[in-house]
Structure formats: C-alpha cells, structure tokens
C-alpha cells in the first residue's frame, strides 16, 4: 500500500503522551502486537490490501507481510472457523468481523467452538483469539451496520467482552486483549473512530475492570463504548443544574466489575445505566441487578435504564431517535432524582 493515511500520532517516542484518533490508536496497537508477537496474525474482509473499511489495519500488510495480515473471503463462519484452527496450532489470531451485524453467520464458531474449546479440552487447547468487531450505531449506515451485541456475547460462558470509549482505552485495552490466553470480543465503537484524544503510551493504568471517567457525588451514570462520551456531556450539563454526576466506564462487559459498581453507587446512592442495545434482556438489567445486590440498603431509587428500543436497529435517518440522546438521559436522571419511597 502506498497510502500512509494513518500516521500514528505526532510523536514517535513511546514515553510521550500523543494525540491521535481511535483509528490511529488501534492501528498502532495492532502494529506493535504484530511486532512483539511473531504468532499474531490479522485477517478479515478487506483487512489486507485495503487496510480495512475503517483503515484500522492500514499499512499493516505492507509492514508485516501478506502472511500475517491478509484478506479473507466474504464468509464470517470461515473467518472464525479458521481462527479456531490457527489457535489450536499455536497462533494468536486477531480476526475482524467487518461489522457487528456480520457476526451472526459466525455465531456457531464463536459460541460452540471458540468459547468452549478450552473447557472441552480440559485446558489443553486454549483459544487466544482477539475478535475485533466494529460495533454500535451512529454513522448512518444500512442494516447490519449498527448493532449492539454485547449482551449476546456476555451471555456465553468462556468469552470475555470489552469495549473502549476513547483512544487511550482503545490502544491499551487492545494491546492487553491481544496478549490474553482467552477469547476476547473487542467491540470498537465505530462512531468514535475519528475523535482524537490523548494517549499516554507509557502509563496505561489498570487494563482490568471499570474506570471512573468523572467523579461526582449525587448519581452514577454507567456506560460503555460510544455512550461514555455522551454521558460525560450529560454530566457537564447536569453540573449546571447543581447535580454532580459520576461517570463509570464499565470497559469490560464480561466479566463486569461488580466491585467498581458497588464502590461508585455506594457513594452516590443513585444510578442510571445507558446503552444503545434494546432494553429487554440488555446488559443494563445485569448492571442494575449487580448494583441492587450490593447497594440495596442505601439506594435512593431503583436503578433506571436509558437504552435503545425493542425494535430492529433502524435506518440511518431514525438513528438519532433510537440511540439514547442527551435529553433522554437527563429524563432518566430526573426520574431517579424525583423518586420518593412510598
């Protein structure tokens, strides 16, 4: 490829804090994973020569060769099936499913093979597979390009699920996930690919568990992926009204950091969980239960959920009505604030 579209940030030393987009952060993380682990291989639809439809693997084939970064046929079951075989043979596959909705054809490989091979083989065949899935909505794309599959994946024993909310998290969480011995579903919030942020290369912070992105004392907003940035905006607006909101980026959706939920809501005594996925049997229910379990005695109100609707993900024109917007989140907060024990 002669298209250096993604220069990894403005500085070259690993010690510095650099400003880059999430695209660039993911690209740099993959570049380093390939350099550090000779067993790591990247593949998927358009991942090789084109560098991915979102340019996440841009330039990697040129730098690391077509043996390690390559294109596959349009067959997700094949991409994930091949990952199983490569993992058995000692590789660390980093496959990409081009869009969230394209994961459905590979559910058999993900659920029946990848998730349980380690268990089935009594630990002799671990599945160190990092499955990148550009996820969630927000880019006005057609059907199958805006879905939120975290609850489906989190429900499957044997899988880990993680979603970064900004470039720093993207860089460090991907590098961490790609060195785990377990299968990790890495859900990239595609609507945040282009936003720039500071990445502290040398100081990742803990790669495990949830992370407090803003401290507050009146209410905790729990979110992940693209909804974290929106919740930070809401917290800023709520501060104008005298309400101090804590924003907890859950990051890992399996396993969920129950201790972090307990600590935050134990302090604020009120919680609203926000996700793009439909309401019913969404991960918000799991979060609400974990909070209730830990904080039942001190909670001021039932945990509220502000989510997408129980409908198929809509076309681009209706996206703004579907994804939780600032006003819907503020209404959810108001319901919690107004709650009176009867």
């Amino acid at each position: 490829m002669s298209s250096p579209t993604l220069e990894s940030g403005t500085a070259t030393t690993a010690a510095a804090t650099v400003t880059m987009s999430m695209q660039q952060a993911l690209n740099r993380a993959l570049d380093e994973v390939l350099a550090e682990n000779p067993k790591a291989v990247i593949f998927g639809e358009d991942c090789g020569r084109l560098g991915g439809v979102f340019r996440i693997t841009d330039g990697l084939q040129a730098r690391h060769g077509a043996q390690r970064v390559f294109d596959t046929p349009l067959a997700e079951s094949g991409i994930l099936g091949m990952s199983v075989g490569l993992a058995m043979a000692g590789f660390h596959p980093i496959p990409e499913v081009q869009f969230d909705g394209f994961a459905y054809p590979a559910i058999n490989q993900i659920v029946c093979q990848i998730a349980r091979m380690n268990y089935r083989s009594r630990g002799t065949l671990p599945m160190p597979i990092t499955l990148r899935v550009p996820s969630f909505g927000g880019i006005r794309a057609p059907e199958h390009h805006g879905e939120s599959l975290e609850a489906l994946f989190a429900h499957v024993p044997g899988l880990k699920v993680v979603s970064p909310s900004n470039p720093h998290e993207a860089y460090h969480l991907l590098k961490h996930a790609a060195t785990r011995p377990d299968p990790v579903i890495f859900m990239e919030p595609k609507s945040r690919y282009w936003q720039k942020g500071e990445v502290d290369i040398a100081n990742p912070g803990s790669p495990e568990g949830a992370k407090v992105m803003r401290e507050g004392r009146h209410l905790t907003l729990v979110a992940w992926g693209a909804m974290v940035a929106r919740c930070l905006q809401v917290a800023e607006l709520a501060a104008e009204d005298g309400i101090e909101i804590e924003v907890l980026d859950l990051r890992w959706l399996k396993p969920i950091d129950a201790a972090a939920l307990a600590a935050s809501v134990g302090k604020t005594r009120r919680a609203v969980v926000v996700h793009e996925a439909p309401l019913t049997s969404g991960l918000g229910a799991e979060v609400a239960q974990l909070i209730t379990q830990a904080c039942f005695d001190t909670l001021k109100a039932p945990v509220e959920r502000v989510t997408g609707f129980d409908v198929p993900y809509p076309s681009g024109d209706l996206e703004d009505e579907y994804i939780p917007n600032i006003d819907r989140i503020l209404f959810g907060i108001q319901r919690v604030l107004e709650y009176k024990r009867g």
Partner: protein
Amino acid sequence: MAELSFPLPDLGEGLIEATVLEWLVAPGDQVERNQPLVEVETTKSAVELPSPQAGKVVRIHGGPGEKINVGEPLIVFEVPDDTAGIVGTVPKEEAPKRRVRLSAVLDED
C-alpha cells in the same frame, strides 16, 4: 489530508495487465464518483474505467502506451483525514444541546 491509492482492478477473464490508451483526468482535477478516469486496452477489448470515489487526483500511473499489471497503482486521490469507511458517514462533533433541565432537592444525609 491523506492519500488513497487505487490499483488497476481485476478486469476479469484472467487478464493480468492492461495498456493505458488515454487518461481522461489529470493531477489536480477534482473528480466525481463514477466519472470516467482512463481508457485502457487489454488483449481482449478496450474499456473505460470509472472512478471508484470522489476526490482530488494527486498522481496517475502509466502514460499512453504503457502497461500496468492488475493490482499495481493506477491513481492516487487526496482525501480528508476523517473520510468515513466504505459504509456510513463520519458523525459531526457538535456542542451538546439540551431541552431538559434537572430539578431536585437533594437531602444530603
């Protein structure tokens, strides 16, 4: 701005190369998607290749009479850094707007 290179596409029928007949665009031109870019001739026929995308032409490869192999660079476009993927559009970063105000009497017990 970033550069995006397009190779000579697979012209089917097992063809591995084509000869440039005439370029219909030049470096500096702003082209639309599907606008004719270049006439090329293979051993079987002559074809006109439409542009795979809109953009400003930075470089063209191969003058009239020169051969290009399938997969080798044909044309390079200049594209904005935040060009979306093949699907979808880049969301606009806007200042947050609200209609809802919060009101609460918080008991600080």
